[in-house]
Each structure stands twice: as structure tokens, then as C-alpha cells.
């Protein structure tokens, strides 16, 4: 007979191995055994992805491992999300992610999505080729605390600037932390555009957002 706690350990292993095809069944098993959806998510799935994230950061694993773990978590969430009761007292800062208009590169954003979720953020992924107006509209609708916009091509850098200006025009610039990322982004671009920062990788991005949120709350 499987010990109840082992079910959550198994779920961690499933995420670590990226076994996205069997995670749904394993989550159902854990629910049947009496675990709440939140317990399964936090102790099983998120803990698994934290381990993978650390190993990737330490260069012990490759990107496909991280992507498969992210896909596994996504599959598990399909079952769990509708069952999770929203606890008003628990705080999960929300971040909107998207790749700018005319740019369909999603790899960097995908990594950010996984790593931010593992760090306890509530992530809204707008996808790729996202018009500036959509970033603004969704930020207003969700009271986003952070917007992370990425662009892969230098020729689409102009849309990062467009988002920055639209945040000002819509009167919400001071309400959100605006981060930008992607290969053509540099410190100089951050200054030119008037963003709040950029990071070289997803782990640095999480640290930066945590620092910026902390400073914002303190002030």
C-alpha cells in the first residue's frame, strides 16, 4: 500500500522527470487520497519545479528538462486550478508576461513563466506577438504589479518603448514594475526606454522583481 505522503513525493519526481503524460493521473490519485488541491500544487508540483530550477541554474540540467517540467506542471494545473480555493490572506504577486508585437519568440518567456511560478508568483502569460494595447488592458484588468515584456529581435525593440509610453499615457506607470528582456536588451536600452530593469536570466529576474517589490512596499 502506498503511504499517503509518498504520493506527493511521486508527484515531485514526475515533475522533475518531466513526465507530462502521467501527471494528470497522479494528481487525481493524490486528490482521491484526501490531499487538497493546494497541498498537491505546493508540496508536489511547485516543489518539483523548484528542484529542477535550481539544477538548471547550477547547469546540472539543460533547457529541455526545464521545459518538460514546466509542461508537466501546466498539465497538472489543468486539473487542480479549478479546485484551488482562493485564500484571500495568502499573497501572490501577479506578473504579466508577453512577447511584443511582430515577435513570436517564446523560449525566454517560457522559462520566466516556469521560474516565476516556482517562486510563488501568479503568472498571466499573454503569449507572443502581443499588441501594446493588450499589455495595458490586461494590466488594468488584473491590477498587475509587474509587467515583463520580452523581445528577441532588435527590430521589435520599438514596441518595448511603445509599452512604456502607453503605461504613462494610461496613468498606470507608477502602479507597475516594468521589466524588459531579450537578447537585444541592455542597460542602455533600459535607460532609453525608461523601464525599471532587465535581467540576464530568469533567476536574476526573480531576484530583481523581489527587490523592486520590496522597495516599493517599503516606500
Amino acid at each position, binding site marked *: 500500500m502506498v503511504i499517503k505522503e509518498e504520493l506527493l513525493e511521486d508527484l515531485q519526481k514526475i515533475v522533475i522527470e*518531466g513526465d*507530462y*503524460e502521467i501527471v494528470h493521473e497522479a494528481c487525481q490519485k493524490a486528490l482521491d487520497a484526501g490531499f487538497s488541491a493546494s497541498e498537491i500544487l505546493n508540496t508536489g508540483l511547485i516543489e518539483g519545479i523548484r528542484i529542477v530550477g535550481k539544477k*538548471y541554474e547550477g*547547469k546540472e540540467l*539543460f*533547457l*529541455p*528538462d526545464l*521545459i*518538460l517540467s514546466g*509542461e508537466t506542471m501546466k498539465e497538472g494545473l489543468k486539473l487542480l486550478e479549478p479546485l484551488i480555493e482562493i485564500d484571500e490572506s495568502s499573497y501572490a504577486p501577479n506578473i504579466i508576461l508577453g512577447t511584443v508585437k*511582430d*515577435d*513570436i*519568440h*517564446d*523560449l525566454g518567456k*517560457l522559462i520566466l513563466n516556469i521560474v516565476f511560478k516556482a517562486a510563488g508568483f501568479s503568472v498571466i502569460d499573454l503569449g507572443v*506577438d502581443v499588441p501594446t494595447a493588450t499589455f495595458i488592458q490586461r494590466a488594468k484588468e488584473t491590477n498587475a504589479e509587474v509587467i515583463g515584456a520580452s523581445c528577441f*529581435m*532588435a*527590430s*521589435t*525593440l*520599438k514596441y518595448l518603448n511603445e509599452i512604456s509610453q502607453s503605461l504613462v499615457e494610461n496613468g498606470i506607470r507608477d502602479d507597475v514594475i516594468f521589466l524588459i528582456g531579450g*537578447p*537585444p536588451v*541592455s*542597460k*542602455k*536600452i533600459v535607460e532609453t526606454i525608461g523601464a525599471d530593469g532587465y535581467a540576464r536570466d530568469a533567476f536574476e529576474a526573480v531576484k530583481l522583481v523581489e527587490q523592486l517589490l520590496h522597495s516599493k512596499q517599503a516606500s
Partner: protein
Amino acid sequence: MNCLSRKRKNEQNDVKGTSLLPKKRCSLALSLREPDRVPIANYGLEFAAIDAGFKIGEVAVSSQKIVQSTIQFLTKYEFDQQLNLSIDPFNIEAEGMGSKVKFPENSMPVITDYAVKDYKDINSLQVPDPQKAARMPVILGAHELFLENYGDKYSVAGLFTSPFSLAIALRGYTNLIKDMKTKPDYVHKLLEVATETVLEYGKAFKDIELPAATILEQFASPPNLSTKQYDEFVLPYVSRVIQGLKPMNITLGGVWGYSFLQNSWKDLLRKIIASGSASTMFLDPDGEYIDIKEFKMISKFHGRATFSGISANLIRDGPIKLLRQRISKHCKNCAPGGGYAIFALYLPPGTPPENVSAFASFVKEFGTYPLST
């Protein structure tokens, strides 16, 4: 002076002269000799297109405008070679096989819909006819036109995508990664069609008598793939393309992420050499983390010239002092003994023209033979 000594004198001038044609300069470097100075090349055509007064989108679909942008760029900034005669070398074959491509006016074309949504779609994939399919004739036409008009002065090489990166342009990265875990046989089937397509497109470059080409392997780079996945899904197909296009010299380009492999970066370099790649490349920021002198030494030992790519953001943003230091470092470590060329990894639109000129002048400063010690 007798005939023989005149010939010797001329050969010497070819090598040590100060006014070699760019083509001769590149050819000497590729044959592991010292030209008059390190050749300067560029990758990426958007800057050149804008500098020539065109919109990026219109150059993407016009042989004439590709050639016009290229020649104006090479002449104005005194570069020796343009590595890609195309705006977008990543999506052309996939477009020819059915992936949908969007052409923004001021940006590079991008894939908006992958041709392989389900594995049954593989059965209906056709190897496209390079003379007819999508933008393939535009790109081939640009190479022909350039060769015809400027081939005496400048080297021209083909550039197309590799089977693995093509498979991603047909299926999407995340989908392909998932398939590699659960449906590897399908992935191999897709790679078979991709390989046949690359060979067919490559043969069209061979038919217009291009002596060399680069195949872009931007996706098959660590950390995008594990070493094990590289051995199974990349190496056999790349080797087939390189062998299949002989006697063309094919270089496996666009590989980055050596630094992610830490101490085992040399294993990847040796695999690339073993695949038959005609020369080797390392790109910034790898150049900051691996021993580039050793990279060049290993390459030369195996009879391969080395290209090093300088960071696009560094050329665009500077500081110029750092750009000068970077070029000095690359030349100091890789230029001795010849067999070396340097290139702008990419020139982003918006790069100050004076930075592009500075890039070329720094290579002349540090890469002129005999090198100053």
C-alpha cells in the same frame, strides 16, 4: 627577375601585401594562412537594409535589394564579407514546407503557424523545389546576382538552416522537445524530411557554383539541448548534409552556449569538427568564458579556420573602449598564425554608424599582419 622568382614574389605579396582584395583575404584566412590582416565579416542584414534606405520587409523579398544593401554596406564600412545574403535565414525552408510566415514592414519575418501540428502532417510534407518555393528563389537569385556582379572582389557563401533547427521551425521548440521524450521515432521521421529539404536547397547553392556555405544550428546549442539529445537528434543529420553537399565547404554555424558546458566545451567543439564542419565558430558571450586561444588551437590542429563573433549589443551600445578591448583580446588570442576571421555577430537596427566604422578600424588596428606584440 626570372619567372619563378617573380611568381614567388607575387605569392609573397598576396600574403603580406597591404591591399589584398577582400576575397583573397578571406580565402587565405580560410586556408589557415596569414593574409594582410584579419578579415572582417558581418552577419545580419537589417542594419545594411536600413542604411541603404530600404524597409526591412521589402528587402526580405527582393534579390535586387538584398544585393544593393549588401554592396553598399561592404563598400561604406570596409567589411570583407557579408555572411548572409538574406534578411531572415531562419524561416525560408520552413515557409517553403508550409509554415505560415508574417512579413512586418520594419522587422524580420516570423513564423506564425507551424506546418506540423500533428504527426500525421509529416506524411504530407513535401521537399520543396528551391527554384519555386516561397522565398527560396529570391535568396538563390540574390546569391547569383552578387556572384555575377561582385564575385571577383568579394567571397560569397550560401547560408541555410540545419535539419534540427528546420524541424523546430516546422513543429515549434516546446512541441519538439515533448516529442523527443515521448515520440522519438516521429522526430526522426521529421528530421529525415528536414534533411532531404536542406540537401535539396544546398544543392541549389552548389549549382550556382558557390564554393562554401554555412548551416545555421541556432537551436541545437547548449543549453537548448542536452549532450545526449545533440548526439541523437543533431549530429547524424548534420553530418549527412555536410557529406552530401561535398565538395562544397560547409561550416556548422550559429552554435552558441559553449560556456554552459563549462569544462566539457571542448567535447562539443571536437564533435563539430568530427561532423566535417569546414571551419569553427564561437560567439559572444562564450568568448568571455572559454579559453579562446585553446579553441583556435584545437581548430587549427584539425585544419579548421576559426571565426569569432563580437556581441551585437556591445557594437550597438558600446562603450567603444570596451569594444576596442574585446577586439584586441580576440585578435591577440586567435589571429597569430592566421586561419582566423572576426565578424559582427549581428548589427541591430539603430546601431550608430560610427560604431560600425569603429568595429572595422579596431580589427585593422589589432589584426594587421605582422601582428604587433
